């Protein structure tokens, strides 16, 4: 891994957020590849297709809570079912602009969720997260 995270996945319908988040992630210099999906369904489809190619599967997913078609919670439901068949473990962070405590509590109740991050994430916060994951 050479001290770097191979693939980070951003699932969010907001294109400006996709743009800023990917720039912030790049600036940490701790990630090799970034893939992006506008909603949970697209992300799930991708994982399904690539489930036998561990190299193409993300190591970390930043998952938005509110999205059309399939929101973050629905994605998690499907992902938990699929998880056992995946060749590698994927770390998931829920991301939202919401500071609603109900969303935060809900995220903490799901063991597959490693953390709940409030937008904007920022380069500094991302660096801390990646360093923790790498160590």
């Amino acid at each position, binding site marked *: 891994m050479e001290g770097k995270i191979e693939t980070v996945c951003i699932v969010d319908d*907001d294109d*400006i*957020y996709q*743009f*800023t*988040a990917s*720039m*912030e992630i790049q*600036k940490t210099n701790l990630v090799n590849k970034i893939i992006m999906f*506008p*909603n949970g*369904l697209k992300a799930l489809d991708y994982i399904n297709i690539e489930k036998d190619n561990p190299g193409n599967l993300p190591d970390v997913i930043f998952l938005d809570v*509110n999205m*059309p*078609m399939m929101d973050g919670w*629905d994605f998690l439901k499907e992902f938990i079912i699929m998880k056992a068949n995946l060749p590698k473990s994927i770390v998931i962070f829920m991301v*939202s*602009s*919401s*500071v*609603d405590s109900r969303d935060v509590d809900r995220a903490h109740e799901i063991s597959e969720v490693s953390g709940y991050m*409030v*937008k*904007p*994430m*920022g*380069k500094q916060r991302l660096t801390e997260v990646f360093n923790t994951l790498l160590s």
Partner: protein
Amino acid sequence: MDSILEFFKNLFDAKGFMPRWVCGNWTELHGWIYIIANIAIWAAYFTIPILLYSFIYEKKRFIFKNVIVWFILFIIFCGSTHLIDAVIFWYPMYRFNAIVLSVTAVVSWGTVFVLYKYIPRALEYKSPEQLQYIIDEQTKELATAYEKLSDSEKQFKALVNNNPDIITRISKDLKYQFINDSILKVRNMKIEDIVGKNIEEVSKNDNSPNTNSFLTNVKKAFESKEVQQYEFATNTNTLNQGYFSMTVVPLKDENSDEVEDVITVTRDITTQKLYEIELVQNVANLEILAQKHENKRRILEDFTYIVSHNLRSPVANLSSLLHLIQDENNADIRELLIQKVFIAFEKLSITVSDLTTVVQIRQNIEIEKELLRFEDILKDHLTNLEMQIKQVYAEIDYDFSKCESILYPKIYLESIILNLLSNALKYKSPDRKPKIIFWTEVAKDGIFSLFCQDNGLGIDLKKNGNKIFGLNKTFHEHPEAKGVGLFMTRNQIETMGGTISVESQIDIGTKFTIQFNNYSDQWKAR
């Protein structure tokens, strides 16, 4: 035996005897005193039976008739012996006299026997004084009893007449047998004009609209033999609108078990009823208040959600962009970031402007209403969207016959119908020709409803039911999906006091139901 025959053969014969005048030493005076006294006794003894007979003839029910008859016979025979005694002075018919004496003896003993038999009964009979005394006593008792009776009747009448309820007794032929004075408090009528009259006859003068239900219940009480009870409202001498409870009690005959009369009791329940109405009104007001409170709470929750998501999200983007610009040395990338700032700012502006519009809608409860025809508004939109409709071969139908028009703010109704129409067009199914139908209905309570049904993609309400009318909520990956429309529509409808709800099935279609609130106005408007 020969002597008996001989005796009777010569019964009226005087042979062998001498007239009394010549038998013995009679002076003229002595003889005549004897004769006259005897005749006088006979005359008297003959008159007494006539008087007695006339007495028992008059007193037909006299129980001593037998005794009197015996007495009459007894006296007649006694009288006869005296007559014969006088006749013997000239004609000495001693044989006949012996027979008369014998019969007299038998009759006398018969009388003794009858008297003896009747004495115990006679003893039971009271003397006129005794009877008078008894009559006097009984008259006194009767007078006391009558007084008591009349007291109790007075008491009963006072009770019935001072009873605030109107009490009547009605016979099987539906005639009033009795009514107490309480009727005078509610109706300008005379008791005499009611008692003895038929219900319908009395009610004709009364003009009461409740006569029918009264008649029905009275008849029902007679037929079913069960107590009938109902409430009614009427105007009275003092009240415009009085409320009364009516109880019709059937009175059964103890022997035949048939209902011969009914008692009706009419109670004034105006005070209770007014309290009840006030209470119901208060509860309704409270419910409205609670509803308003709930609405306010929901609006607040909406805005909390909006601030948390819709406002925070573009602000977070701007914050990220600004930090990136600050750290960026590459001029090209800086330029790109600045462009993104404008886009993010534009999004924020739209959100803020949408919110401002919603706040304006929420505050503008007094917005001017006008009488609008559903058909006119829909037709305008159909003309404006003609190209769009033709492109997708949409079939649009409507039926506003149940409720053609409504008193409503024009821009709201335009916006509501446009949102429903453009949503239905936007989320059409790629597999079907879009069919959209609008119609109106009027519920029993007068509430107007507008419906819009399509055969489009449908929405998974289990997942999105609570979000469908939220700001910037979209459920389809669609380039035009902005999610402002239904949020605005809901706010417009709710501000006017109505509700909007949705039923949907994925890949079958969606049906929106709008219930307008101020229906009573609209009834008038129609």
